């Protein structure tokens, strides 16, 4: 059926709402082939129409094919767009370094997009402020602060950790600590610490 490949792309994304599934290069290529073949068919039909070899009712065929082309194109663009959104969320939650588990799921263009996006964000952040020199890290303080310290439990061994006021903590598995909220935000997001 027309446009089914494209629908599969969207379905794949929907089936895995939380993670970034591997880039389905194969399916994308098939969609492009489908578009190209439909387009070719359209050109041929148009030529035949103009030559008068076929009746005017074939015009609706043309329209149907064109609609299928547009739809497939839209699906493919949506696929890329949504993957980008998920990648963007990744940058905000975990920071600017992609682990290899995620990297293998991306195509080259997406990796490049991610780096450029991070760079863009970093430029924006450093450009804030009057003198332009005081940078702001927008990825911290995502929640309104309720207290200065938070109680966290360490779920993985981490070794020594120094906070902004100089206290050194030895983060071993199964230990409870009270840390200043800002310093442990990124550790919480990485899953090493857990809020109690």
């Amino acid at each position, binding site marked *: 059926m027309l446009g089914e490949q494209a629908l599969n792309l969207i379905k794949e994304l929907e089936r895995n709402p939380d993670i970034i599934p591997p880039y389905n290069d194969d399916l994308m290529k098939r969609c492009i082939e489908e*578009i190209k073949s439909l387009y070719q068919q359209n050109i041929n039909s148009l030529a035949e129409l103009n030559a008068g070899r076929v009746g005017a009712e074939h015009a609706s065929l043309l329209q149907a094919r064109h609609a299928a082309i547009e739809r497939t194109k839209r699906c493919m663009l949506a696929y*890329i767009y949504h993957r980008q959104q998920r990648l963007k969320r990744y940058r905000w939650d975990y920071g600017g370094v992609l682990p290899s588990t995620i990297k293998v799921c991306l*195509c080259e263009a997406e990796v490049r997009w991610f780096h450029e996006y991070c760079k863009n964000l970093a*430029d*924006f952040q450093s450009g804030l402020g*009057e003198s332009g020199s005081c940078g702001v890290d927008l990825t911290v303080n995502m929640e*309104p602060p309720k207290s200065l310290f938070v109680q966290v439990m360490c779920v993985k061994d981490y070794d020594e950790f120094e906070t902004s006021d100089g206290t050194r903590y030895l983060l071993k598995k199964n230990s409870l600590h009270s840390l200043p909220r*800002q310093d442990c935000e990124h550790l919480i997001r990485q899953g090493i610490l857990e809020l109690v």
Partner: protein
Amino acid sequence: MASTSEDPLSLGLDSLIDGEADDDVDAVTPADVLQQLTEAWQNEGAAPELLPHRFDVVDSVLSQIEGMDENLRMYGRNKSLKHDIHKMELDRIIYLNNSYLRRRLDKIENSAALLLEQDERRRRDGLEPKMSSNEQRYAEKYTQLQEDSFKRCVLDQLPVSLQKLELARLAPIANTDELVFAEALETCHGVSVPDPRDDGPGFEQIVVLEKESRTLIPYKSVQSFVYSGDMRLL
């Protein structure tokens, strides 16, 4: 460095800032700046579209945050309760600031191309653009990144006539018919609302909103007042 207050740890935002900031010509107190930032943050959160930027507020808040941080560090070694309370206050201000910037960034990312076009139009009409120069650079770069990635993954492989893409058309348009809670800071004349008595578009009523009145009203009607600062969203 002159300090106007004698007890640096007395409660009150003023005491955290060095006195020199007050020597400016249009002396805006830190409390004022915080109030403006809060208002801008609230507005930005409630409005369905991007509002004109308040980067003047953001800039002054950022410089004050720096000053506060410095002061806290200097007096911070004794573990008094005041120090902790001041630190909490500082954290809250940083959160407000970051949240404001993040909300704007979110809206910009959603419809970057469209906003750039709108700003272009505003500049031609002689109005202030909604985005600051920093944000504009960000939006331009973002749009370009999107186009590049679309081209590389999809469009370049299609036949030439199918390669056209207008991002501005594809961006979601803010729903300005959305209802919002608004409070009038000044008496606003000439607020037009859809007339409930007659069906169909185009029938409008002109109402006057008294100062300090609160209404639930379509955003479209109060848009210009929000831009000018006569109304604020809740």
